[in-house]
């Protein structure tokens, strides 16, 4: 049954803050050395915003209020810092104690810049790389912070382009993989897209030590806004698009670097339509060759094989956006209605739990 936001809010206020499980009693374990908890930016039933962390039993471990809606975040390797970035245009990011949710820092963007919702750490947990924009000239940058010095800004790398969004670190430990959406916006003009005719989106590879761009890949069409990225353990680089052209056109929405260029994935027409020209997140599984992508606009999440492009799972999940990789080879997809759904290759999607929050885009 579909539940409207207001109905959901009423239900969640009445139901208190704990998960409702479906057929199991624990949230599945994440892959690798990630923390056991699930954290995400959330919309709260009363209209305010926060960052929420749930333990695997589905209980709220902590919930921290934030001034404005946040988007994504990252965990600091080897330390107990969990960071969340304000949604674009983000004027700050927050550093929380990963175990208690206590706010350790709130780092404001320097004058003339804003964050765009994403950041990633160096493997040793010292350097934080955050995508940002100098909004007057419309220049995309990577802002570098030293976590050892209470997140002091120490460097700025130029992207020679507009609208960077998600960035992640290649398993080589040195290359930043950056989605450059190509869309010009300005805080004075709300979120109006100012350059749809002249966009130049790109997938960018950058040396994180020197800031030098070592690879730049343009999608086939200039309106395939390259917003989200992921890298497999073997170093296969994936990018997901949000197509800015009309809905009746159905261009590919996912691609990976292969033989020095972007190889696009096109699925059957029904699946292409179900993705609504909009992918909110793409995640490569570290244990296999599977890739998951979620479209809140189309209310659909898919899993496909990286090598062959074969579609191996598809599920209708209203307002789905966040994706987490699970130990054993599956994915967990979160939705703006608080649902957590497990996706496995060749199997029907499984509802795991329902949490009383609106999960914002990305799970951390």
């Amino acid at each position, binding site marked *: 049954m579909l539940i409207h936001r*207001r*109905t959901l809010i009423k239900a969640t206020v009445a139901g208190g803050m704990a998960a409702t499980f479906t057929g199991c009693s624990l949230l599945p374990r994440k892959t690798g050395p990630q923390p056991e908890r699930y954290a995400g930016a959330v919309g709260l039933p009363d209209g305010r915003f926060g960052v929420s962390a749930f333990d695997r039993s589905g209980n709220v471990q902590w919930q921290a209020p934030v001034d404005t809606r946040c988007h994504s975040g990252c965990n600091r390797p080897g330390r107990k810092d969990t960071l969340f970035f304000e949604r674009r245009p983000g004027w700050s990011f927050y550093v929380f104690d990963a175990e208690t949710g206590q706010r350790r820092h709130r780092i404001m963007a320097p004058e003339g810049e804003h964050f765009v919702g994403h950041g990633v750490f160096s493997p040793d947990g010292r350097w934080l790389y955050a995508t940002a924009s100098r909004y007057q000239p419309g220049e995309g940058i990577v802002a570098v912070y030293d976590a050892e010095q209470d997140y002091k800004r120490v460097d700025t790398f130029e992207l020679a382009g507009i609208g960077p969004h998600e960035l992640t670190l290649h398993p080589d430990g040195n290359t930043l993989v950056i989605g450059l959406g190509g869309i010009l916006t300005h805080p004075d*003009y709300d*979120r109006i897209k100012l350059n749809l005719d002249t966009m130049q989106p790109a997938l960018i590879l950058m040396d994180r030590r020197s800031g030098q761009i070592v690879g730049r890949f343009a999608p086939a069409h200039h309106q395939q806004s390259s917003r989200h990225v992921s890298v497999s353990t073997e170093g296969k680089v994936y990018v997901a698009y949000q197509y800015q052209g009309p*809905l*009746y056109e159905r261009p590919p929405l996912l691609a990976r670097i292969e033989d020095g260029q972007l190889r696009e994935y096109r699925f059957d027409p029904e699946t292409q339509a179900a993705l609504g020209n909009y992918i909110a997140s793409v995640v490569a599984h570290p244990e296999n060759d599977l890739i998951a992508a979620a479209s*809140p606009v189309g209310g659909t999440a898919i899993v496909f094989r990286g090598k062959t492009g074969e579609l191996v799972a598809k599920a209708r999940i209203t307002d789905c956006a966040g994706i987490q990789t699970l130990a054993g080879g599956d994915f967990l997809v979160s939705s703006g209605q608080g649902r957590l759904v497990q996706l496995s290759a060749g199997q029907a999607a499984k509802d795991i739990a329902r949490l009383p929050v609106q999960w914002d885009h990305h799970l951390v």
Partner: protein
Amino acid sequence: MQPITRLFFASALLVCTTAALGANADTQAREQWHGAIQNGYESLATKTEQLASAAVGYCNAPTSDSRPALNDAWLDAFLAWQRVRFVDFGPMENNNLSWQFQFWPDPKNLVARKARYLLGTEAPVNAEVINQSGVAVQGFPMAEYLLFDEQLNSGENALPAAKNCEVLSAVTRHMARNARGLADSWASFKQHYLDTGPYRDTTIKAGMTALEILEERRLAQPMGLRGNGKRNPYITDAWRSGQSLMAVEATVAGLEKFYLPGLITSLKTDGETELAERIQRQFEKVADNFPEAHAAMATLMESDERFRILQGLFVDVSQLSTLINDEAAVALGVVRGFNSSDGD
């Protein structure tokens, strides 16, 4: 044929027939929407053309008669826009057309800042300058500022001052050109719109979003029902001309005329005739608040007695919003999500 097989075929046939009916009804709804919106866009094209002509006419021969006619032409065109403002997809998405017609909200008062800049330049303000000046310059709020801003119109740049006339003519010409282009593009868009199933939900969501903006940002917020609780008529649109509530009336009338028929078709196909009728009646209830609520919002905020007129309107709009955004949306399986409406 064995009974069980017969039953299977009979039920399969029923499923096929129902699915075909649904698909036909979806197409029928989209045909209704397309035709209705085309009418709305044609009206916008006509009214903005008349506004551009009225601006030139007044500036060439400013008389005490032609000034009210110019103000009326602005209002007529603005209300034509309000009636189709809910359409946030299709050709409207090209070049930020919607924002070009109405840059709002404008918390930094960019319209006034840009107007002062243009009025202060010595270089001619022509079509190219307007093209290059951004959405705050290109639509109704800018024309409204030039026509109605009290401070401007009590100074040396008051209409029919040459510079003001130059800017007003260029802006209204830009609007007329956009409106004509929009109506033509919408006509060309027809086949895509009819062939593309997801446009049903897109259209239904457009009306839902318009109602939410109407309820929350154009009424609740200025009325002080949200946030700090202070009444502030200046955060709604068209406050300079005092036409915020005329605009509300036109938005609701536009939804009733151009949106509701297709919605009713969809609801009735899903067996929701009773809900469709309740929605129809609620539109009438909203309309009944007028003409009493035609006053400027600032005027209605001056006393509690007058404020009650505004409250009555808000309650009726809010109920309409609940009927469509909660009940109809759920009945039709249309969901606007926390993430799907975010754009990141």
